[in-house]
């Protein structure tokens, strides 16, 4: 057996989490930073050793230490990218909480490290129930992060977050049990190729959908997200937007589509309609927000709707696009929450009107904020452009109408993001206290610069990120091809007419009738 690097990636933050519980504030911060950086290093090793074009499942580990399910880990390119996203964002989250969190630092760092364990576990799990345990366990640290270190209305937000997502996922558990009972295995790679009865698929799909739609979150079950985001501390929002929302999309890619292709096809329009509503409605809602975090939270819902629409396009482009939007959004919305956090730490308000003209006194900050705003809008050269373009191009192959509606989301996105940027960074410096804020310090630089670099890298040379996923997405496309929906404006190449359009038939009879058929 090769070196169990995935287990090590789970063990490092776990040990750190336990250690942090017993440490004082400063040493807990250092421990957490070291643990997350170590995991980032391990993640880079993982990526470098990932054999593109090799076996579908790599770094496979398996131990039969539980009854009813096994400790089975292994990743494909899709999981690799999402693990990279998680380990990349974690040290940044720790840095973001460096000064902002003052009470119960050890417990806070412990919760974050635990969160990292669970996120990596979700993406690496190759056993259905192991996946579920990691998936569901994430609720505990997040509940504590929101509830203990959150804003004024944190208790309501933490309850809502917990119960909403719990209700979504318990039904999935029953569906999983049924599937395991039917297929006789808990092994995800095997289940990926098991054909369930199409009738049963409908129910299974709905049960999984209940869970993933809430996680995603899709309209109309998105309402927990703005509350959770607004109340969570900055780093909590980053993790929530950056990685936790990706669990829903990952679930669709890993379970709903390949395991229930027929049912997915059946519900394609259901997903499209929810996505269209989400894109337009939440963008409009974002336009009128006064609270910066809420605005970005609503924009997340809109971006995630492009992900769901792209996924249900049933083609490689759409799915690649969806993955790229997820990765790009993970970076960009995380960065935007960090930008909000930077000025929140200085002025302790998220009210947009309390700021203004920050580009005068905080030029470096304004530059970063500008870059991430543009990335969020989907400007070419940034990560989100690649994803959105691919997703919409894939979607176009299925439905021109849905593509049209979803594209308006990009326009509306430009509207609310630029409007936000104008109000915060440009204009008069109406508030004296906002005008007196110092620019970025070294720690904030260290947080924002890596993300900016990654955003540009992903925008300029997306191949680095697409290459590991290509083969897996092709496999997924092949798997679901049998159920792929038809193109609504399917341009079949017809036979050319014999004559010009203005040709008048010289005589009467059969020839005329034929002409009319055109």
């Amino acid at each position: 057996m090769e070196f169990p690097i995935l287990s090590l990636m789970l063990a490092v933050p776990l040990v750190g989490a336990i250690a942090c519980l017993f440490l004082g504030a400063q040493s807990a911060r250092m421990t957490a930073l070291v643990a997350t950086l170590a995991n980032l290093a391990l993640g880079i090793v993982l990526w470098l050793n990932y054999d593109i074009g090799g076996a579908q499942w790599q770094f496979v580990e398996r131990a039969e230490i539980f009854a009813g399910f096994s400790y089975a880990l292994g990743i494909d390119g899709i999981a690799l990218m999402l693990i990279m996203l998680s380990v990349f964002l974690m040290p940044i989250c720790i840095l973001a909480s460096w000064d902002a969190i003052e009470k119960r630092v050890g417990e806070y760092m412990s919760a974050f490290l635990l969160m990292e364990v669970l996120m990596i576990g979700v993406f690496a799990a190759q056993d259905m129930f192991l996946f579920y345990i990691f998936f569901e366990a994430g609720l505990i640290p997040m509940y504590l992060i929101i509830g203990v270190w959150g804003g004024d209305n944190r208790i309501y937000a933490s309850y809502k977050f917990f119960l909403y997502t719990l209700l979504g996922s318990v039904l999935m558990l029953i569906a999983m049990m049924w599937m395991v009972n039917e297929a006789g295995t808990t092994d995800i790679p095997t289940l990926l190729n098991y054909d369930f009865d199409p009738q049963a698929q409908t129910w299974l799909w709905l049960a999984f959908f209940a869970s993933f739609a809430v996680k995603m979150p899709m309209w109309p079950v998105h309402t927990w997200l703005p509350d959770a985001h607004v109340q969570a501390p900055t780093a909590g929002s980053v993790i929530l937007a950056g990685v936790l929302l990706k669990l829903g999309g990952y679930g669709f890619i890993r379970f709903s589509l390949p395991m229930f292709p027929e049912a997915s096809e059946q519900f394609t329009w259901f997903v499209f309609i929810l996505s269209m509503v989400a894109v337009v409605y939440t963008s409009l809602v974002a336009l009128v927000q006064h609270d910066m975090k809420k605005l970005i939270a609503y924009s997340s819902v809109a971006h995630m709707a492009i992900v769901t629409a792209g996924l249900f396009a049933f083609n490689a482009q759409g799915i690649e696009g969806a993955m790229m939007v997820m990765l790009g959004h993970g970076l960009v919305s995380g960065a935007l929450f960090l930008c909000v956090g930077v000025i929140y730490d200085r002025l302790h308000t998220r009210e947009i009107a309390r700021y203004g003209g920050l580009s005068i006194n905080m030029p470096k900050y304004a530059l970063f904020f500008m870059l991430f705003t543009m990335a969020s809008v989907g400007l070419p050269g940034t990560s989100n452009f690649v994803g959105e373009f691919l997703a919409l191009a894939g979607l176009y192959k299925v439905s021109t109408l849905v593509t049209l509606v979803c594209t308006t989301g990009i326009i509306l996105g430009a509207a609310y993001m630029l409007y936000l940027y104008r109000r915060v960074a440009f204009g008069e410096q109406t508030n004296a206290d906002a005008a007196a804020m110092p620019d970025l310090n070294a720690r904030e630089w260290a947080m924002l610069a890596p993300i900016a670099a990654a955003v540009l890298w992903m925008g300029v040379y997306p191949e680095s990120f697409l290459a590991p996923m290509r083969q897996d997405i092709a496999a997924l496309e092949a798997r679901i091809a049998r159920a792929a929906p038809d193109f609504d404006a399917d341009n079949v190449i017809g036979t050319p007419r014999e004559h010009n359009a203005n040709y008048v038939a010289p005589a009467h009879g059969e020839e005329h009738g034929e002409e009319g058929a055109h």
Partner: protein
Amino acid sequence: MSYATSLYLTGAEVGLSLTGLVLLLVAAWGGTKSARLVTILSVAALIGAAIFSVGLFDRAGSEVAGRAFGDLYRADAFGSFAKILIYLATSAVLVVTPRFYTHSGSYRAEYPVLMVFNAVGMGMMVSATDLMTLYIGLEMSSLSSYVLASFLKQDDRSSEAGLKYFVLGALASGIILYGISLVYGFTGSTNYEGIRAAFATSFPTGALFGVVFVLAGLAFKVSAVPFHMWTPDVYEGAPTPVTAFFASAPKVAAMGMLLRMAMDPFAGEVDAWRQIVIFAALASIVVGALGAIGQQNLKRLLAYSSINNVGFILIGLAAATPAGIAGALTYLAIYVAMVVGSFTALLMLRDPAGNNLETFADISGLSTRRPALAWSLLALMFSLAGIPPLFGFWGKFVVFQAAVQADLVALAAIGIAASVIGAFYYLKFIKVMFFDEPLREVEASSPVSHWAVLAICVAVISPLGYLLTIPLGDWTAQAAASFVAAM
């Protein structure tokens, strides 16, 4: 079969009975001074009985299959598994008991003796294979429970709890007895095998009445809805260690008795009782969850929680398969760890003057005052709510899986959706401890004995518990096979 074999098979009960009688004499001569000694000896005897039961675990291969006294009693894997749980739970509760009474000075040497006799009764309940043995065991356990509930004589609430428990318990016993008489009347036998054989040939309506009466009485004993009304009052009124005891060992005994009853003598009539069990299961889950929401008293809250948990165990029974019974037993084992742990933590909550704290206001902000205790309670509450990676999830997992395998998907789906309601009040527990500001002073330290019990329970329900899934699965499967195989 020799008389000696019978005595050997019932060794745990015989040993405990003798210990109880001797200790009673010690208590009578030694008075209150001997309370500590009697407690220690009782704990030792209970642990000894548990070890003895481990030795008896696998009797299926032996020539008498563990049957004692002409099949009045059976020492099979099922009975042994339940007994191990019962004895361990009783001894754990006994360890954390005496300190509770030091403040009022009302601890007496009779207390551990009553617990020992109670354990004898409970052992008989889970091993009985004859309605008469069953009834004697049941009454032996119940009568000592009534006394224990009202042990704080000066406290009105305790007396009220004892009286309430006695009146309603006597009513339930009467219902069971009436059911037994009907069953006997229609089958001509009080022996489980005889009853099953008789039901296999004919199952008249009158016998159905008998079955329903017996099951209703047993539902009272396990406090399943709609026979749960006594539980919150008794749990709240009884002294906390007694509540801890009621919620753990007698629950295992009553549930074990119910499982054996349903799957042995009534095994052929699954269709007759399944809908009752399904109703009781769902109703218990929902009522247990909703009832707990408004509670301020933690003991009352845990009472509703135990009703809620009984609902989940009954889902395993509703499956009526070996996997379902094994699941119910797994759940019981985890439940005992959770409930003993929770009540031990509750017993550790005292104000500096030594008064016990038992409301939400008392644990407010506990995480800053007693972090270790608060984190233990957090783990226990998430475990009770069935959130992975804590081990409580595994209990729910196995019963729901059994239900799904038995094609009761709708039951599983409704049950698990209702469990989300239950999560609400467990979350409240955590919210009060972690999110709220401290209101009360709490005692700064607790004795080692309490920590030891709490640490064992928390270790079991922690993610480390998953390492137990394989042995636990084997033991419960073996236990379930001891009578389900006969189906």
